């Protein structure tokens, strides 16, 4: 069997009761909030509605059989309910969110202000082009920035998010092979450490996936890659910097080998944050790459807004860009190309034109930073990750030698023999007020702890995080297993029973006494 043996424990080992139970279930100012349906009081209403006029029913025998279950609450109850729920949500706006493998950085408020301008926010995708020239110009301008930053020939803004962008890229690769009548290519190569979406995308596009092993230093094994390249390989999907937070030093050689085999080179741009303004992917030999606007260009991400995954194409794949895209006519007017026509492109990825609100935010971010500011973004993201690596490497175990890029990867060797696991460290970190780092990923190291601070964090906030993590590492080594197995203690819920949740999932709330209520009315 294919086994994930990264040492992640399942089930609850031990849970002490060191935290006193309160009468209300509240924990200080953290309120134990029932579901809105459980707060229902029949007849209660937030507004004073006039009595409905008596009208003759034209529905015949169709009659309401009872209440439809909408809860009755007063306005202050509703306001408190949603305010309390929002307070339970940990977000980048409330603190450090070091979720390596997914860039969680500050969303500047200027972006929000721009996205709310009525000329962008209140337009409809079916409006006549002449009435949305500003929005179309913005799309063209964003495309120009993306093409400039990546050195690429063509751009589509349509894909809805990163994985959709991957699919767009792989479909373009397939179209290019098909156009040449080269239909014998059935495989996509993907490194072991890749994001899970890469093999999923390749499989969804009908390709067989072959894994490329990593070397001791966490990079693609070039010889193993060359051995697998052949006339049956359609392309390579690679992330750079990779998921271990390391720059693929051999990337130019890799690109040459891929091209020599007649295949195309897809780059997963999830980590573009680390190299934006410093490296142009086209110069590395990349043929096609998606860009997560919601990571690199700061549009709202986790717990927030939609993704947006524009894709950039090299000269060789530019003919396969899907519709729609914006062009500017000689008279200066902007226009959407909506039909692929007889060309080789594969058509359309998505209804309408993409995530307009994200385009506005991303362009606002780019223009407010400028070229030099974007370069500084990459510099600071890498500097912050290396600062954490340097401050933690004597108490935790870095998986690979040398500096990292935008995220630093540790494994659980420092916990060996302590009885404490990576999962326990993550849970204890919640008690310290931090969102945990990515755990048990990438799979190429045992008990992974992957930390990405992003350029958002100040030295003071990084220092506070370091202090907490160092204290936890030292506490684990001192043998205080019970402390960790009981964590988290200060959260609305203690450690959850993931096994019971999977074996006996309760997916729907049902009113216990609904029938009695109906009877009483």
């Amino acid at each position: 069997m294919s086994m994930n043996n990264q040492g992640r424990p399942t089930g609850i080992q031990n849970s002490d009761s060191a935290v006193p139970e309160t009468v209300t279930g509240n924990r200080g100012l953290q309120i134990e909030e029932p579901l809105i349906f459980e707060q229902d009081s029949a007849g209660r209403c937030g507004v004073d509605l006039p009595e409905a006029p008596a009208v003759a029913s034209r529905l015949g025998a169709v009659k309401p059989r009872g209440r439809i279950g909408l809860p009755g609450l007063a306005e202050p109850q509703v306001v408190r309910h949603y305010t309390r729920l929002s307070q339970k949500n940990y977000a980048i706006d409330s603190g450090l969110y070091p979720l390596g493998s997914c860039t969680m950085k500050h969303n500047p408020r200027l972006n929000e202000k721009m996205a709310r301008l009525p000329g962008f926010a209140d337009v409809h995708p079916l409006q006549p082009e002449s009435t949305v020239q500003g929005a179309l110009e913005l799309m063209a301008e964003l495309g120009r920035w993306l093409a400039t930053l990546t050195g690429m020939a063509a751009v589509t803004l349509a894909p809805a998010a990163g994985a959709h962008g991957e699919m767009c890229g792989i479909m373009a690769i397939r179209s290019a092979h098909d156009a040449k009548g080269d239909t014998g290519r059935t495989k996509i190569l993907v490194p072991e450490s890749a994001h899970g979406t890469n093999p999923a995308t390749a499989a969804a596009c009908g390709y067989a996936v072959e894994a490329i092993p990593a070397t001791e230093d966490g990079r693609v094994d070039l010889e193993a890659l060359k051995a697998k390249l052949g006339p049956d390989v359609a392309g390579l999907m690679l992330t750079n910097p990779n998921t271990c937070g390391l720059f693929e030093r051999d990337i130019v050689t890799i690109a040459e080998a891929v091209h020599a085999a007649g295949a195309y080179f897809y780059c997963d741009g999830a980590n573009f944050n680390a190299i934006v303004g410093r490296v142009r992917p086209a110069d590395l030999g990349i043929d096609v790459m998606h860009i997560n606007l919601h990571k690199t260009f700061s549009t709202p991400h986790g717990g927030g807004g939609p993704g947006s995954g524009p894709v950039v194409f090299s000269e060789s794949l530019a003919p396969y860009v899907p519709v729609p895209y914006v062009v500017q006519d000689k008279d200066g007017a902007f226009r959407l190309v909506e039909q692929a026509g007889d060309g080789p492109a594969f058509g359309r990825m998505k209804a309408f034109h993409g995530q307009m609100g994200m385009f506005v935010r991303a362009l606002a971010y780019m223009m407010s930073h400028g070229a030099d500011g974007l370069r500084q973004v990459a510099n600071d993201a890498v500097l912050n990750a290396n600062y954490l690596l340097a401050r933690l490497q004597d108490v935790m175990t870095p998986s690979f030698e040398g500096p990292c890029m935008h995220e630093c990867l540790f494994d659980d060797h420092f916990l060996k023999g302590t009885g404490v696991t990576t999962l326990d460290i993550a849970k204890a970190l919640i008690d310290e007020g931090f969102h945990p780092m990515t755990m048990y990923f990438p799979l190429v190291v045992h008990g992974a702890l992957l930390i990405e601070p992003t350029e958002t964090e100040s030295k003071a906030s990084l220092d506070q995080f370091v202090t907490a993590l160092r204290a936890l590492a030292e506490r684990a080594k001192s043998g205080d297993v019970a402390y960790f197995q009981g964590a988290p203690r200060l959260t609305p819920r203690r450690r959850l029973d993931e096994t019971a949740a999977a074996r006996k999932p309760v997916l729907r709330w049902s009113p216990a006494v609904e029938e009695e209520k109906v009877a009483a009315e």
Partner: protein
Amino acid sequence: MTIKYTKDHEWVRVEGDVGTVGVSDHAQHQLGDVVFVELPEVGRQLQQGKEAAVVESVKAASDVFAPVSGEVIEANADLENDPSLVNAGAETTGWFFKLRLSNPAELDGLMDEAAYQAFVEGQA
């Protein structure tokens, strides 16, 4: 009766021309709490080393490969109701399926219990 193991942590116990297949105790330890098992249909022809079943734990979904080739003659229906049997008795009541071996010579390429133990220790 012989029991043989693969390097992918499946076992097959052979009686006559019928093999009973499951995952090793070591594998269930690594998987953690098993929450779902997908078994092959009776009558399906399995090829050695190819996907035969899926086992899902809280942390991962894993393919189970056929240790030998053959036709599936029975699937362990108890596992569908109670996947925790894999944790409780990976090499006994937690068996996955039985098949009629089409090429018993394939068994020669598998490990016996002692060799498998040594293989597992070598991996740690």
